[in-house]
């Protein structure tokens, strides 16, 4: 019983890890990165 439980836990962990990795590698997922930049010149010289 214990062996079965451990095997099931191992399979579920492996599936979760595989799912997470495949999601990360999924092509076409668009990420937007960037940040705030201070404006010093407003077009006035």
């Amino acid at each position, binding site marked *: 019983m214990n062996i079965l439980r451990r095997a099931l836990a191992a399979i579920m962990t492996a599936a979760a890890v595989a799912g997470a990795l495949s999601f990360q590698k999924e092509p076409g997922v668009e990420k*937007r990165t960037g940040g705030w930049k201070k*404006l010093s010149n*407003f077009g006035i010289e």
Partner: protein
Amino acid sequence: MRALVIGAGAVGTKVAQQLLSSNAVDKIILRDTSSEKLVLASKNLGSRVEVEHFPFSQNMDADVVVVASPEGTQLEEVKNAITLKRPTVVVSDGLSETVSILNLGKEASEFGVPVVVGTGFAPGLSCVLAAYGKTFLNETEEIHVSKMGTGGPACALVHHRALSRMSFGWRENKWDKRLGGSGRELLWFPEPVGPQDCYHAALSDPMLLHNAFPGVARISAKMAATRRDRFTAFFPMLTPPHNEGGIGAIRVEVRGSKNGVQENIVLGVSEYPALAAASVTALTTEYLLKHKISLNHMSTLALLVKPSEFLSDLAARSIVVEIFEGDRTTV
């Protein structure tokens, strides 16, 4: 030159301080119902300030009137200033009172009095940022304003009430009413404020922005709030508000198109709200006194100033405007 500053609170005293330090006026008359505030202000501001305690004189003997008093008292002061034909700058805060003040536009035109409505952090600086954001685009479709933080106790009270009242946004040619405290959206403000949950609230920014830009299809305003803010908004304030809140921020998102390509311009400012409001008000007052604003009716800041020039002058007062620049990457 003499300026009458009505309200010796967090914003009013700072406006007086800035007007004196820039030598825009020779004398300030500071008016408030609280003798404690007046004593404190006169100690800090020096001999060029004359304080006026209740009962106030009926004639506003000044070249310009700055209304920085709490919500509920501004309308009467503006009415009085228009009747006496005094150029007026109204900080403006609460939604219903701002609408009432805008309704005095006809009287201001009849008397030929310049009245600038909305010269605070939001509304005020938010309107100038929206006008500046518009300059990046050929066509503007949406303007969304959000704010975080409060100035003095009067501002904190408006913030508290705004979450329990109906918010008004302009959406497809009509006013769209939403329950205050609804419509949660996670928005990023400039650092150190960062991400905040924002909600619909009874804010006056959409009214002023629609007044300035009637062609924009969607205008909305949201306010950052905590769960406690939203829960307690329906009750009276249980604890007295702070003398002045911490650092706050505004964020203005302008959506539209440039050369046929959809663009979003996101501008923001992170600053103590009372200090930013005072800087905007003092600068507007100086523009009015120096005739940089030529006006003989009621209008809003977004229509009156050149946004780039105004923001540049504000930068000289340490109010720093930031723009969000995003990189689009595909992984």
